[in-house]
């Protein structure tokens, strides 16, 4: 730690060297990634990038929303009609229960299921569920369900045009607000604060939806947008004709509309997850982040990483457009960061979901700390022997490098599409170099953060 950094940390009046294990809640953090894994992962990322430049297809291949073969009818039926209504009702009931537990249960986070349910089971669990099943939160969002119930008595939305005009920008803001709460807010694991956040989040989005209409949730609710982005990488999706299909995840990602604000959402996701990783490194905890719970470093940290990722992406996409003769490439290339964001999320939160995710259910067995044993789990400890440290490390490297591979392939295909459509197209292959450079930088950063954890 440099003297300058120590000096910067001292004014916050907190002991130097004390840093939290980041994230909203959590009882353990992963071991630093073994050097060998990092070298292998990094080398592989570079190798993949060169293969992508030289040996992948020369004409666009991804069919996007037009691709896929229909799911069997009984399977598709599960996503519609009555089963869906039942699921919506269940999710709404569970959400209300979590808010009630947060506000009326034990004030001690070790005795209250709500912070665990929200930060771990919901937020982190949304990642694997969306990656496997698609944008489920759009289908189950309890705020959307509530809005539908309220809409019967509410006047017609006054400004439905705003959904188009603002695009995904409100969702980016919504995610940034959540990221701040999760990573930087004081006493963020306090059940009452979690309850207050949830109530405030619900009110803001319900009022916004009353003005803009139901489409607000798609464009403004950060959780729904997150699920939609990750869900684009699922092996199931909705084809452009509305049929539920089994499809190549690359087609799903390519089908994401290059709407206004998509870049912002993706950049916030990559940046905030990267900061969560940064916050766990000893470099950060002994340096600028040594203020621990102090609001200033833990607020500037995520904002700075988000801004850095944004600048990096804007520079890369701008340069790619310039080299390839297709200006304004940032939005059409934004989807290439989605697998990177997914890789970061899996790498950082895999073990959290497996281990601390158990706490949610253990505590839900006695939701109001009255000695009840509803699920037969009361008093149980977390089983930390579920997976080994080596498995965790392997999953982490595989996720980061996997995200890189998919992102690189998506960027390759989209660069070819953009070149083909540009009136003054030049050097489609050379134009990919800046994009690959971003991918490599993000991958190395991701691995480096896990190395320093």
């Amino acid at each position: 730690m440099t003297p300058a950094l120590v000096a910067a940390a001292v004014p916050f009046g907190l002991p130097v060297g004390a840093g939290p294990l980041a994230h909203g809640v959590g009882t353990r953090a992963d071991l630093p990634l073994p050097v060998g894994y990092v070298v292998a992962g990094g080398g592989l990322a570079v190798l993949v990038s060169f293969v992508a430049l030289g040996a992948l297809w020369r004409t666009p291949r991804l069919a996007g929303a037009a691709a896929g073969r229909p799911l069997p009818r009984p399977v598709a039926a599960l996503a519609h009609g009555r089963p869906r209504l039942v699921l919506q009702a269940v999710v709404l009931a569970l959400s209300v229960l979590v808010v009630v537990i947060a506000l009326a249960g034990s004030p001690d986070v070790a005795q209250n299921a709500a912070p665990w349910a929200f930060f771990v089971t919901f937020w982190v669990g949304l990642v694997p569920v969306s990656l496997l099943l698609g944008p489920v939160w759009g289908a189950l969002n309890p705020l959307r369900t509530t809005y539908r119930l309220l809409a019967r008595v509410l006047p017609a939305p006054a400004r439905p045009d705003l959904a188009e005009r603002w695009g995904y920008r409100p969702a980016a803001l919504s995610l940034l607000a959540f990221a701040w709460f999760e990573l930087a807010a004081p006493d963020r694991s306090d059940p009452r604060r979690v309850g207050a956040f949830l109530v405030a989040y619900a009110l803001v989005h319900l009022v916004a939806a009353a003005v803009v209409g139901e489409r607000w949730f798609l464009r403004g609710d950060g959780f729904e947008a997150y699920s939609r982005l990750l869900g684009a990488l699922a092996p199931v999706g909705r084809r452009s004709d509305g049929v539920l299909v089994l499809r190549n995840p690359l087609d799903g990602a390519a089908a994401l509309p290059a709407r206004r604000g998509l870049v912002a959402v993706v950049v916030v996701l990559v940046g905030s997850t990267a900061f969560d990783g940064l916050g766990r490194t000893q470099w950060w905890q002994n340096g600028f982040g040594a203020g621990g719970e102090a609001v200033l470093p833990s607020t500037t940290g995520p904002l700075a990483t988000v801004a850095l990722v944004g600048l990096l992406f804007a520079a890369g996409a701008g340069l790619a457009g310039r080299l390839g003769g297709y200006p304004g490439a940032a939005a059409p290339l934004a989807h290439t960061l989605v697998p990177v964001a997914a890789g970061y999320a899996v790498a950082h939160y895999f073990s959290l979901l497996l281990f601390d995710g158990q706490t949610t259910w253990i505590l839900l067995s006695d939701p109001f700390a009255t000695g009840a044993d509803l699920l037969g789990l009361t008093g149980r400890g977390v089983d930390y022997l579920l997976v080994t440290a080596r498995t965790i490390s392997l999953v982490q490297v595989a996720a980061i490098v996997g995200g890189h591979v998919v992102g690189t392939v998506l960027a390759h295909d989209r660069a070819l599409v953009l070149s083909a459509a540009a009136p003054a197209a030049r050097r489609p292959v050379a134009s990919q170099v800046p994009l690959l450079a971003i991918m490599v930088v993000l991958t190395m950063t991701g691995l480096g953060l896990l190395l320093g954890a």
Partner: protein
Amino acid sequence: MNRRPTRTTTLLLTVAALGAVTLTGCASGSSTAAATSAPAVTTSTAPAASATTPSETPTETPTPTPTPTEEGQLVEITVAKGKVTGPKGRVKVKAGSTVILRVTSDVADEIHLHGYDKHADVEKGGTADLRFKATLTGVFEVELEEKGLQLVQLQVQ
């Protein structure tokens, strides 16, 4: 139409297989690399002065290791006036070893080892030992529970 995704998938699979080979190839070598890189220095307590004069903190702090004793790996920490004195940074302990956290505090509080979920009460001006077998790997926080003050982070591997 069906052919396109198939060829894409084949290419991706090739790349993934390449990745798997590279990863498993290095997995065996990495554990030795980690083992040899652990420094043999055994410093347990830092001078109390460093807490008040931070500018003297060295740029590179050696990774602290606990003091081996007959009963187990000893980690000593002192809390005075809300400040923690003890090993700087993270303490590395070997998985499977017995660890003794010895905390001296000028306030009465509860020592809490997260993850293992072990507790020990320390009295005002007293010293308490929290002894446990390090069976779980990962990074764990030790806190003064009431004050919410982090005492040390244990890295069990």
